[in-house]
């Protein structure tokens, strides 16, 4: 059975979309199996059948060039890395905050309408519990989302074998900008009142600048540590695979 790992790496580094590369190598393996069966049915020995099959399939260079000649099979990320790793972090963070905000507003509105209809009169304990739920939601949105997106950029970039500079750009942007965003809900104390607040420490008058810097540093430290861990795991699995093959 031929190994198409080298071909796969070459295509990914040249920008061919991972889904096309995966499917191509799987189809080539299946095709190789069919050719070997055909050759064996024609009377060839196993070794000869495999040699003939490889020759009929085409050389690695031919197989790579045939794919590389098709620019339509390149991924969006490979064609427009600036859009993915430059504009992407801004767009993702903005949309995540927008989604969190809209969802939060929806929950507050629904609670305002439905709670009185259900005949329940919220007291201070219920108001406190509601504020705590909002606090958890906001914390997830502003602390969790940047780290989740940093992992997404790392995963997508590594999968496409993008240059490290692009991946680092995306991860750093999302970690730093994500560190400065703030979404807070206050219970103002009066009945039916509450205050939902969205701010960014990167926009004038630069509120909570020191806190933003600290959170950005924390995000970068966490993302960097996870990156190192992922690289170590990848190296270990590559060594194990190499050892298994030899």
């Amino acid at each position, binding site marked *: 059975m031929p190994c198409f790992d080298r071909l796969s790496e070459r295509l990914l580094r040249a920008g061919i979309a991972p889904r096309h590369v995966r499917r191509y190598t799987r*189809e080539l393996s299946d095709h190789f199996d069919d050719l070997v069966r055909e050759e064996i049915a024609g009377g060839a020995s196993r070794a000869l059948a495999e040699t003939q099959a490889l020759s*009929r*399939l085409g050389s690695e260079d031919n197989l790579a060039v045939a794919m590389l000649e*098709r620019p*339509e099979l390149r991924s969006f990320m490979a064609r427009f890395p600036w859009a993915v790793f430059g504009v992407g972090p801004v767009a993702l963070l903005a949309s995540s905050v927008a989604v969190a905000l809209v969802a939060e507003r929806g929950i507050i509105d629904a609670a305002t309408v439905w709670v009185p209809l259900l005949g329940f009169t919220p007291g201070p304990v219920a108001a406190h519990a509601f504020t705590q739920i909002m606090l958890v939601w906001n914390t997830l949105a502003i602390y969790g989302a940047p780290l989740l997106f940093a992992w997404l950029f790392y995963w997508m970039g590594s999968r496409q074998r993008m240059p490290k500079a692009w991946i680092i750009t995306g991860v750093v942007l999302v970690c730093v900008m994500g560190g400065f965003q703030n979404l807070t809900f206050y219970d103002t104390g009066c009945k039916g009142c509450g205050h939902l607040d969205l701010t960014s420490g990167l926009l004038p008058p630069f509120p909570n600048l020191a806190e933003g810097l600290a959170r950005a540093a924390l995000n970068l430290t966490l993302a960097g540590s996870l990156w190192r861990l992922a690289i170590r795991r990848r190296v270990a699995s590559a060594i194990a695979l190499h050892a298994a093959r030899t």
Partner: protein
Amino acid sequence: MRIMANPSFMNGVPELLILRTLSSGEMYGYELVQAIRARTNQAIKVGEGVVYPALHALESEGMLKSRRKLVNGRTRVYYAVTRKGEKHLAGLVRHWQHITDAIGLAIGGTAHAML
């Protein structure tokens, strides 16, 4: 494709052969290559693996559609021509008939002049 001709002259040939062959029914890669060999009387010998990039490209252009099918315990990707592919094929066939007619005329003319 290993074809004994000027490559620029052969632009569109793989697409034509693939679409024409698949227009008779869905096939997977190996089946398709064998069908092309049989239809062309083995005159066109394909580096068999290079048919897949053409299939992927045609699919991304909407000329083909694919589906996975379990056959004898193996999952195969079957390709079939779409309506858009049929229209494109008709255009390619017209184009190639025009070219082969023109070349036929040219060859006939040359032969006549040489006589």
